[in-house]
């Protein structure tokens, strides 16, 4: 590369004039081109100036490249002389054409500036005279550059804050330019390829745009959510976006379980009634089709693909030899793994998007500049927003002053402790209630469900739903005692509801564990009984000495174990159903009926119902989000034992979407406590992650520790459920693979691996911490540097201004020796306002060279005296050139602060 550069330099020395002229010419031309479309706005112009400089640099590089190419062709005779001749001839032609085009373009774009274009033409002629044949590659290069530049401009156009007219004109001109020049460019040997490439890019762009349009059209419920967003602000919409996201996740889960477990079993597995586990037992047959039984997911529903117990432990089913038990296990694991992955990925993305907002240095500015939610299109929401902004301002001011009057801190403390105590009591009470109810229901179940009333049968679910409904209200009442700041209160409230739900869920699970243990005891007895029964059967056939075949027993008559897995699945399905029902019914009663009553009774009531006590209900974002999250937790917990759960959940979410959208739009009023959506997104996700972890724990525990039932489910007959992996490894994979796997799963390898991962996490965390620190340092440095630069700039500008003024004054004095006092004052005023104008401009674009040029303009252009500046900031009059004036900032700032 170094040698080549040298050669280039040599070349430059040989014909300096030529290249100089072309570059000069080109620069000017480019300048015109660039400035032509942007005559309307000043800011655009300055930007262009900067850009011009950039393009100039690029151009020069391009030239060098072009020359380089030519030199290669000439000096090294790579292409042979004939080709070279051709090239030159072609180059000459190309050059002519190019210049033609150039002229045309000039006419189009610089018709206003005739003089300069004429000059250019002259220069063009000169150029031709100097060296007509060897310019073509350079020109081509330049053209290519120019075309690329235009293309970039077209790309960047939408990000420019110009009015549409300017943008349109620029776009059309640029496109015209690109099209013309692309025609001219296609002269080389790669013409066809080039044209093809251009065409393909165009097509690709169009396709991309269409695809983008198509994609936005495909997002489900987008319009519904936007409508809600524009009525209720972004926080309510964030719930629906969360709901939609959840719907997507559940869609995948449903696809997994449905496609890999339920459908294969239904299509290829043994049909209903073929073996005992796939048949309704004789005792239940009479009631197996009753609606009440089906509603409880008993009877035929229990003995179907919907539940764990139905699946057979046959290793491979159907003509596909589908490995059913393995598939069942892997789908269970995959569901959990996918959920973890998607939640964490979403969290990380959210954190990336809002990762910078952690410093609190712009508290007030953010409150002022960014607190309005422009999506609000409802007068009531707007009023609430006004109120909340005002309170937030007042609070911030109060906090800033730090003059919080703590009247009787002991009372507040006492009340807060009391409130927490009460909440704890509530939590403990609800936990005990659930435990009690679950145990009681077990007793009922032992007695036989048909002897009990509907309430006794559905006690557990009803109690859980009712607790979930009323305890939050109780918490709300209790939190009034505490006298917290509303935001803090909201967090406490959320935390308490979270604890309540979690406590309820875990009590439920513990009770369920008890039940599992009971069932397993029962199973042992049944197993023993079955062996004796089989023996007696065998003995019977032997002793009867009959010729009847031994398999006359109908599968419905075979005694069977209790199958705790199906029981767990059923419990979860029932829970989901009752939860869904309660949600919908509360929605209908609490929101719709209330709204109807308030609306129509208001005509004949003593007080104003709409403004007074019952009023319309608000949309409870946090409560709904929590409900959704816990619902999802139950899905994760139960999906292994009831493959139908994701499908049910999908249905529920689908209905929820429409029902809640309708309810929000028709009977809710916007909330008074408007809280920001962006901050809460990751909050929801964090809760979801916690729930995911907590709900997979018991599921994994049962899978790993409890042996599966002996006569139902895909893992029956195995010691543990995960034995299916080992079995597959042994029989379906080559021996070495199994060996390798057994080595890999050796604790001696696994433990160091875990240790390594922990160390890696620690390392990554500490590096990220140090990066963050470095980032902060850099930020600080940048800030101080910025300030310093600005100071310097200002000082330099002021100095230049001063010099200019001096020169002008000197000139004026020379002109009119008898200057009157009035004129002197005028000059003073001019200088003052000119300096101010420059001062503001310089700050706005931060481009010293451009600012330099403009300063001269602004100084020579007679500035209009601005009265308000003088009125507002009484800068002391000064004599031009007086050194003390280089620091006017020091005087001005305090005077401003006083205003």
């Amino acid at each position: 590369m170094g040698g080549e550069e040298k050669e280039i330099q040599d070349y430059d020395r040989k014909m300096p004039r030529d290249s100089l002229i072309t570059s000069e010419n080109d620069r000017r031309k480019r300048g015109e081109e660039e400035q032509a479309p942007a005559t309307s706005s000043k800011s655009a112009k300055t930007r262009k100036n900067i850009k011009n400089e950039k393009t100039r640099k690029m151009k020069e590089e391009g030239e060098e490249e072009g020359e380089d190419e030519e030199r290669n062709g000439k000096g090294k005779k790579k292409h042979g002389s004939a080709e070279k001749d051709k090239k030159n001839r072609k180059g000459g032609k190309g050059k002519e054409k190019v210049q033609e085009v150039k002229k045309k373009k000039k006419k189009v774009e610089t018709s206003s500036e005739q003089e300069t274009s004429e000059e250019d033409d002259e220069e063009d002629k000169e150029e031709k005279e100097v060296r007509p044949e060897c310019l073509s590659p350079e020109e081509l290069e330049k053209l290519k550059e120019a075309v690329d530049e235009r293309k970039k401009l077209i790309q960047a156009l939408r990000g420019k804050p110009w009015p549409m007219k300017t943008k349109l004109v620029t776009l059309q001109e640029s496109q015209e330019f690109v099209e013309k020049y692309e025609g001219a460019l296609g002269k080389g040997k790669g013409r066809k390829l080039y044209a093809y490439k251009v065409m393909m890019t165009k097509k690709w762009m169009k396709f991309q745009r269409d695809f983008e349009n198509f994609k936005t059209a495909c997002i489900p419920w987008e319009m519904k959510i936007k409508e809600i967003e524009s009525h209720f602000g972004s926080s309510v919409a964030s719930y629906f976006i969360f709901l939609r996201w959840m719907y997507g996740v559940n869609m995948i889960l449903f696809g997994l379980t449905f496609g890999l477990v339920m459908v294969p079993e239904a299509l290829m597995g043994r049909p209903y009634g073929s073996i005992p586990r796939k048949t309704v037992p004789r005792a239940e047959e009479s009631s197996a089709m009753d609606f009440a039984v089906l509603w409880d997911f008993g009877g035929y529903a229990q003995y179907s693909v919907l539940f764990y117990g139905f699946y057979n432990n046959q290793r491979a089913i159907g003509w596909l030899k589908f490995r059913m038990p393995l598939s069942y296990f892997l789908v269970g694991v995959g569901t959990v793994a996918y959920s973890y992955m998607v939640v964490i990925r979403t969290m990380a993305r959210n954190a990336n998007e809002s990762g910078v907002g952690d410093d609190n240095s712009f508290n007030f500015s953010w409150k002022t500049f960014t607190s309005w939610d422009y999506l609000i299109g409802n007068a009531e929401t707007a009023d609430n927003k006004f109120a909340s902004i005002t309170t937030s301002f007042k609070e911030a001011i109060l906090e800033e002053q730090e003059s919080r009057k703590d009247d009787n801190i002991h009372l507040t403390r006492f009340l807060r402790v009391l409130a927490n105590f009460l909440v704890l009591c509530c939590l403990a009470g609800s936990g005990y209630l659930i435990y009690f109810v679950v145990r009681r229901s077990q007793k009922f179940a032992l007695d036989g469900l048909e002897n009990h009333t509907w309430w006794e049968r559905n006690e557990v679910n009803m109690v859980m739903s009712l607790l979930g409904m009323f305890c939050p209200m109780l918490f709300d009442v209790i939190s009034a005692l505490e006298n917290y700041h509303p935001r803090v209160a909201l967090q406490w409230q959320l935390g308490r509801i979270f604890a309540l739900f979690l406590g309820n869920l875990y009590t439920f699970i513990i009770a369920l564990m008890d039940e599992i243990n009971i069932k397993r005891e029962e199973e042992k007895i049944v197993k023993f009984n079955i062996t004796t029964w089989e023996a007696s059967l065998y003995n019977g056939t032997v002793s009867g000495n009959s010729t009847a075949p031994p398999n006359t027993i109908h599968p419905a008559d075979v005694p069977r174990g209790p199958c705790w897995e199906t029981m767990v699945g059923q419990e979860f399905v029932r829970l989901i159903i009752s939860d869904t029902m309660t949600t919908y019914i509360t929605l209908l009663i609490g929101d719709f009926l209330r709204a109807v009553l308030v609306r129509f009774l208001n005509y004949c009531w003593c007080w104003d119902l709409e403004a007074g006590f019952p009023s319309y209900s608000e949309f409870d974002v946090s409560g709904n989000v929590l409900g959704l999250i816990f619902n999802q937790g139950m899905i994760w917990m139960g999906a292994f034992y009831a493959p139908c759960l994701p499908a049910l959940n999908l249905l529920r979410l689908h209905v929820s979407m429409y029902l809640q959208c309708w309810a929000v739009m028709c009977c809710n009023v916007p909330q008074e406590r408007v809280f920001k959506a962006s901050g809460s997104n990751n909050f929801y996700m964090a809760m979801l992650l916690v729930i995911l972890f907590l709900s997979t724990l018991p599921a994994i525990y049962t899978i790993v520790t409890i042996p599966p039932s002996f006569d139902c489910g895909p893992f029956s007959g195995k010691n543990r459920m995960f034995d299916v992996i080992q079995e597959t490894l042994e029989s379906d994979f080559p021996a070495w693979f199994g060996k390798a796997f057994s080595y890999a799963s050796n604790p001696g390898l696994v433990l160091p691996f875990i240790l390594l991962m922990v160390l890696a996490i620690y390392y990554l965390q500490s590096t990220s911490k140090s990066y963050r620190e470095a980032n902060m340092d850099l930020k600080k440095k940048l800030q101080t540097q910025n300030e310093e630069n600005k100071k310097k700039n200002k000082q330099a500008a002021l100095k230049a201004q001063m010099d200019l003024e001096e020169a002008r004054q000197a000139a004026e004095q020379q002109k009119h020796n008898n200057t009157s006092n009035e004129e002197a004052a005028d000059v003073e005023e001019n200088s003052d306002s000119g300096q101010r104008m420059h001062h503001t401009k310089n700050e706005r674009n931060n481009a010293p060279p451009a600012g330099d040029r403009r300063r001269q303009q602004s100084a020579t252009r007679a500035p209009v005296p601005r009265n308000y500046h003088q009125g507002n900031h009484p800068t002391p009059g000064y004599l031009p050139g007086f050194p003390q004036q280089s620091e006017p900032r020091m005087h001005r700032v305090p005077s401003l602060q006083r205003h």
Partner: protein
Amino acid sequence: MGATASQLGKDLLSEYQELTFLTKQEILLAHKRFTELLTREERDLNLNTRVPMARILTLPELKSNPFRKRICYVFSTSEQKDGSLTFEDFLDLLSAFSDSATLEIKSHYAFRIFDFDDDGTLDRGDLEKLVNCLTGETDDTQLTPDEMRQLINNILEESDIDKDGTVNLSEFQHVISRSPDFVSSFKIVL
């Protein structure tokens, strides 16, 4: 829909897509909404018909926005500075407030909206008007003069980096770019 498409023209439509952050559907919807604002006679005219500000402000999306008049003034290309919008101005508005617009362009327009006297900087007067807009017109939500002074002092202390008593565009963008929820809240959808 056929009428709107034919009135907009295919080329123009694709150019608008190129120049704004809007999709085709959004542009067509915008056109539909815009023609609804026009009277019957005006509808037959070309795209350069201006809709007066009063009629623009009847749009429900802008009706309760405290900055609605400023928004119209900023996006209007009218010579008389009356805040009337052509269809192209309207598209500009929607593009700046759209989902996919960049932070840079959003903050640029936000600055111009907040710059009530159009002098290129946010001075104390602008900030006071801005805060008054945010707290609503009623007396019970307005801040007292004392609070206002304190608030503005605090704002300037934070964001006026060069300490000249005003917030200029680069300072404003510096502050805004760090805000977690500016981009998500500076949005208007039809």
